């Protein structure tokens, strides 16, 4: 057990150093984009946040599936942790995206497939939390959570598809140039910064997930003790 704590502490330090390096790269290494200027730099962490948000959803659904299969509580703890962390990163992605969009597209929001799907995914996450909040029995809570996160995860790709078809047949009225993608050519330095940011955020995700799972285990222990003392 002590070994694990040491490993986690080491990971914490590594994560902090990597983040510092990433921030440094974004501001000092990556060149300034000619047309967009400073605001383009949001893109590196914005895409990384979105990536973690979606990855987390997949992890949550997979863990939920394994939980239903095996009945082993630890998978439910992982699933719950993944949803919580996913919400944070999904919301960060939306906020950073809006910050980028306002000067570039002259709007805080558009209903394009990626944005809309991310927003809906966040709503599914939040619904998951509300579902869990409303159940007192731990076993039932874990089962229902797993069922819902699987249903939710299946619906998200279909949502994306439906809005994609929607947009293809009815093109966006506010036709900003390169409206649905960050359409600029990345120089080599930009690409390196971008890939590094993705990597750093993934490491950050693992670090946060590990901490959250530990916390989840403690929460579960406390709950078991409460139930035992009442019963």
């Amino acid at each position, binding site marked *: 057990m002590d070994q694990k704590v040491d490993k986690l502490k080491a990971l914490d330090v590594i994560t902090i150093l990597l983040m510092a390096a990433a921030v440094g790269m974004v501001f000092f290494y990556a060149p300034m984009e000619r047309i967009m200027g400073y605001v383009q730099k949001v893109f590196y962490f914005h895409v990384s946040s979105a990536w973690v948000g979606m990855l987390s959803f997949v992890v949550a659904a997979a863990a939920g599936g394994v939980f*239903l299969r095996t009945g082993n509580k630890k998978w439910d703890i992982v699933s719950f942790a993944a949803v919580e962390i996913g919400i944070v990163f999904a919301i960060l992605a939306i906020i950073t995206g809006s910050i980028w969009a306002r000067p570039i597209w002259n709007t805080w929001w558009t209903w394009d497939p990626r944005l809309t799907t991310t927003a*809906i995914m966040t*709503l*599914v996450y939040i*619904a998951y939390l*509300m*579902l869990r909040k*409303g*159940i*007192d029995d731990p076993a*039932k809570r874990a*089962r*229902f959570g*797993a*069922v*819902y996160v*699987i*249903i*939710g995860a*299946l*619906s998200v790709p*279909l*949502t994306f*598809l*439906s*809005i994609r*078809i*929607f947009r293809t*047949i009815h093109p966006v009225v506010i036709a900003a140039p390169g409206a649905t993608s960050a359409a600029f050519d990345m120089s080599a330095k930009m690409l390196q910064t971008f890939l590094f940011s993705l990597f750093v955020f993934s490491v950050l995700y693992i670090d946060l997930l590990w901490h959250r799972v530990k916390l989840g285990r403690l929460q579960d222990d406390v709950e078991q003790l409460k139930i035992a003392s009442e019963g």
Partner: protein
Amino acid sequence: MKAMLAVVWKDLKAEMRSREVISAMLIFALLVVLIFNFALELEAGTRASITSGVLWATFTFAGTLGLNRSMAQENDRGCMDGLLMAPVDRSAIYMGKVIGNLVFMVAVEIVVIPVFSLLYNVNLINAGLILVVLLGSIGYIAVGTLLASMAVQTRTRDMLLPILLFPVVIPLIVAAVKASSGFIQALPMAEIQPWLNLLIVYDVVFLTVAWMVFDFVVEE
């Protein structure tokens, strides 16, 4: 199979006696149409795209009502416990509930669609639209029954179902609205086809998944 039909028969019989669920859904649906009339200032020559949107919004909200009542009854009257004690496959219970809920929803739709046609002078009685309404209802009820079974077992009960259901059912609503308006406007089949395909995919995926996981939702 027999168990499934028995569950359907039970639900229909109970409903025939009290008519609680269908009447509540029906009145609610008509009231929603009324509210949309003022909210959107609809008039007789209403555009087809708005028509299908209002129609599906109505069905979505009324459907929630029906699902809540239907599953809450199971919980409150201890019916679910009784069903679970019987030596039947859980999936048969699920399919039985789905078919029962679907009958209620279709019954409401059968009234709302002609009424809407009359109120807004738009002919909604065409085969394509009926098909879309059916496909959409199937998907909605498939997911809705599963999620309602979970929602009624929580503390927040009725309030939770829309929160759980609406984000998940969005692809279905998008496809249903676009396909409906396609048929109302008599667009070429090629334009409507992607939406019909999406509806079918949604129905198949969620019927299958819900049928598989229903066990976990009702076990003790």
